[in-house]
């Protein structure tokens, strides 16, 4: 965190908004700020309070925590021959990346931002409510989950080289498997 951000977050009242990137299709950039935000060369479209998500949790373990993002108040576009539910369900969203950046402001002046969540989509649902209109909800798992990796990955040097060439962290791990016999000193 930059010194300016440390100073800002130390105040009694902190103004911040989240910038959400959903890596589906060409990518969706949405923010819960009341105005559009340009960040990192991308324009985050303001959805205000229509976008909500669970609290980001931190813990000391390497656990796969989950977080849901909901975008509500969606209405079919006038003259849209392709209902949005059909479009949503046709998108290839499984295992697509999601990130949440928190942008801090002081009286609407941008201070700094910090990445607070990074993960992958593992589920998506769309529904229509009588009172609230249609909504899309995506469930994500944090970046400790990597769906391209097979479960039970082998911790040997060959595997390590395939993922991280040059990393010699497991170079001598085969030595660990050797049976060590202890003898009394002669």
């Amino acid at each position, binding site marked *: 965190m930059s010194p300016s951000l440390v100073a800002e977050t130390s105040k009694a*009242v902190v103004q911040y908004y989240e910038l959400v990137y959903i890596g589906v299709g060409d990518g969706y950039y949405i923010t819960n700020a009341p*105005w559009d935000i340009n960040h990192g060369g991308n324009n985050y479209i303001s*959805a*205000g309070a229509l976008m909500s998500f669970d609290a980001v949790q931190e813990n000391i373990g390497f656990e796969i925590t989950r977080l849901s993002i909901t975008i509500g*108040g969606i*209405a079919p576009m006038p003259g849209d021959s392709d209902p949005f539910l059909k479009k949503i369900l046709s998108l290839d969203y499984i295992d697509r990346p999601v990130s949440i950046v928190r942008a801090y402001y002081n009286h609407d002046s941008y201070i700094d931002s910090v990445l607070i969540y990074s993960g992958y989509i593992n589920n998506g649902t769309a529904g229509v409510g009588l*009172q*609230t209109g249609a909504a899309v909800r995506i469930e994500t798992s944090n970046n400790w989950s990597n769906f391209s990796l097979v479960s039970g990955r082998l911790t040997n040097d060959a595997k390590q080289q395939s993922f991280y060439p040059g990393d010699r962290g497991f170079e001598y791990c085969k030595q660990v498997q050797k049976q060590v016999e202890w003898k009394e000193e002669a």
Partner: protein
Amino acid sequence: MTQDELLKLAKFISRYSHHNYQYGKYDCMLFPAEWNDVRSGTKKADAIRDNYYDKFTAMKFYKNFISVEGWLKGAGYHEIEVDVDNPIIDGDMVVSGMPEWPLVYVAFQGNLYYMSEDGLFAYNTKVVNKRSVWRK
């Protein structure tokens, strides 16, 4: 409520959620009044803003001001009966509390938003005791 108005309300709530409660600036009377101005392009909140600065002066101001129901009628709202077939929808105003100190909630996405002294909070529609519901 049109889709454009819904997005306006979403942005209005997002902005208001970062305000501290401040009598005469950001409070329970001004929250619904300012939303109505944003929605309608009017300036009715100007008649309320900066006319009091604490709870005592706010109560004194409201005592001499028109009733919430009268204000809502003047702003183009009409009272409705809410039931299963006619539920509360986005943009409805819900009046609760005592007649001498009413609380006005704004409905949005299944919740009722109210500017309390601890900030803007969303309440489930079922937990709020409704004196009357108003729609535009």
